[in-house]
């Protein structure tokens, strides 16, 4: 696991000093700040129940964009860049196992994604002070949503790693991941709308599980953690990381 730790540190440092990362953070918080301030004004105008504020703050467009676009951007360089520059050969011949490389790269992307979201929690905490809202917000849904976002992002980042391992074209890797994210976010809803799922338990269960954005909004963002969903996400992360490992191994054999 030492190899994984070394890779993790190297990759995380690369994320932290990358101008793209900071640009993402600035744009995300600019958009989120605007949306959140409007949401607060809406709550104030309509004297809505304050316990709903954290939950609804996770239903903003910025959340959707962050889930759909950012995993592709973060992971596009993971392996595709290494292949394009030829440094993949060095990586594959270095005394680290494929699994360590995969775990290190994915772990760095996931932790960086988590760090990107962390200020959104702190912002809500700051809003509780008398100068701003002067109200006790419910942080149960915030923690659950943070966990849900981390798991969902972990799944999408794992797919991003896999997509990046398939090609040496960075843009193609990003595009593949974005299409996958878009499909995962939209397709179950479209299928459920066009097919009668009420009578088919297995199809309904499958679509329910795959409808990750709805699961996030209806369960995690409301403060409910369902262990079956946690297992689903962890299984998905394992699945795509396994595929990434096989992809790398195949390249090594080739």
């Amino acid at each position, binding site marked *: 696991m030492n190899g994984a730790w070394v890779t993790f540190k190297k990759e995380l440092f690369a994320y932290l000093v990358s*101008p793209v990362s900071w640009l993402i953070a600035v744009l995300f918080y600019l958009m989120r*700040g605007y949306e959140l301030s409007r949401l607060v004004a809406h709550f104030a105008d309509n004297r809505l129940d304050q316990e709903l504020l954290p939950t609804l703050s996770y239903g903003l467009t910025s959340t959707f964009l962050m889930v759909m676009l950012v995993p592709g951007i973060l992971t596009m360089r993971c392996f595709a860049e290494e292949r394009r520059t030829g440094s993949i050969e060095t990586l594959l011949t270095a005394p680290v196992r494929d699994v360590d490389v995969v775990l290190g790269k994915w772990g760095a992307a996931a932790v960086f994604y988590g760090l990107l979201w962390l200020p959104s929690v702190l912002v809500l905490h700051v809003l509780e002070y008398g100068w701003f809202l002067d109200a006790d917000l419910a942080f149960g849904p915030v*923690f659950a949503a943070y966990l849900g976002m981390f798991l969902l992002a972990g799944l999408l980042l794992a797919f991003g790693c896999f997509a990046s391992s398939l090609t040496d074209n960075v843009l193609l890797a990003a595009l593949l991941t974005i299409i996958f994210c878009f499909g995962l976010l939209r397709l179950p809803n479209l299928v459920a709308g066009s097919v009668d799922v009420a009578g088919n338990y297995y199809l309904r269960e499958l679509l329910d599980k795959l409808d990750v954005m709805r699961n996030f909004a209806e369960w995690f963002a409301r403060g409910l953690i369902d262990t079956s969903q946690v297992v689903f996400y962890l299984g998905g992360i394992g699945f795509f990381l396994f595929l990434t490992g096989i992809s790398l191994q195949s390249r090594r054999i080739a």
Partner: protein
Amino acid sequence: MKWKSLGLWVNLLVGGALALAIWVLMAWVASRPALRTLVDLTPQQSSSVDAITIDLLKELRGRQADLEFHQFYPPFEGQAADALKAQEFRIRSRLRELTKLLLLSYQALGGDQVKVIEHDLYGDPQKTREAAQRFDYRDSAGDVLVVAVRVPGKEPRFRKLSLPLDLGRIEMPNTAAPMAKNQLPVLKAFVGEVQISSAIKSLLVEGTPAVYVLMGFSPQLSDGATGGSYGMLFGALQKLGFDVKRWDASKDAAVPADAALVVALEPVRDFNDKVTESLHTWVKRGGRVFVNYAWNELDDWNPTGGKFGQLLGYEVGARPVFHKIRDTSGKTGGRWLDNDPAVKRPELGVNPGHPITRRLAQSRTGLEVRHARAIREIGSPAGVRRDVLLVTGDQGWQAAFPEGQQDYRAPLNVKLASFDVGMAIEVDVDPALLPPDTPNPPKTGHVVLVAGQFCTNEGMPYYGDLALNICNWLTERKVLLDLKSSGYEAKYLQVQPPQIDRIGFFLVYGVPGLFLLLGGVVLYLRRRQ
């Protein structure tokens, strides 16, 4: 090279297929109700359900019954024209949200057999129309949750619950009061679990048990809306799936053949011989009776049980029972107080071992009765077992009003004591009284006595659970209504315009600006290295 490349892809596909199978298997196993766990971090744990509901859903799975929740939420009509309408929209939205949240728990715990369907009046009009016809839903009914149960081999049954009327407790302002013009209705509590679980339970029960209210001995008995009437009790029983009927014993002294329970509320004279014999015989055949005595200011309106009491071994005191009240202000150094009208409402202790009162004892629900009287055991009739249900504390006394004046002071020369005011009586069934071909003959009949007013319209909001528990238990339904509901309380956000300005500045300029600054510093330091 081509073969090698093909081999790599095959390797990837086979490995992927195996990993996918493992993923699906993991997700499926984790979805099983037995392994699935919900961690509730919602505000005020509004999605958590009581152990009784969990058992109910287990029972549902055991009976392979399908449970469907159909939500009919008509869209809000236009913009709110005034503050009252806006508040109505807010309450409706919150009730919908809380209901959906609660149903997620039912869905998670119920597994494959529970379906939650939200009908979209515009998105899927055909299915919505079909469902509306099936459940006889009309737009004018507003936000409605339909609980439908289908037990294999039986007709599907359903019950409609109104979100604002059944699931929510909305406090309406007293607009007639001075300074109340700008007050708005407030959502005080959410009792969704109690209502939904009760509805499921009543739908699972086979048939509709008939509760007969004994007439002819209670001239003041009314099902109206006044404080001393019993309209709320009868309404609650009907909602629970009981068929509430009247038994006019002056016309026919025989207990109706379809009776599951006979209820006598505040009788003012003892049952006559015919009714006594009829009731006693019925109890000896496994029948169930609930008698709720209460003290009456008219001396001769305080029956003591009469022959019915003698046969079952009880007697009710003719005088009211009072009990000293606690000195909560602590001004008397721990002494209990009397000479206060509150002593007329003795606070009771409940039997923690009896199924009727067990959960009330566990949840430490306070219980008071008005116009209480003492019940005491007399004799030892064969085949009769008595169990105390409700008892006053040890600071009680039987009040005497020798000159017609109500006196709330404890008598000086009488030792204060505790008095039984509730009793459950179990009577062995006499097989000779049963028809010879009775399938699964009952072994015992039951009588429950409470000597004090508690389930009138005044008492129902506070102590109604006890009355419904008694009826549920007597009709052999498991105790359900004393489950601890989450009791959600709304908190409304109140923010002034300057605060909103500050929040806008902080969120739109402050936070992104901080990231810009930090990013600039990091990149500057990076360049210098």
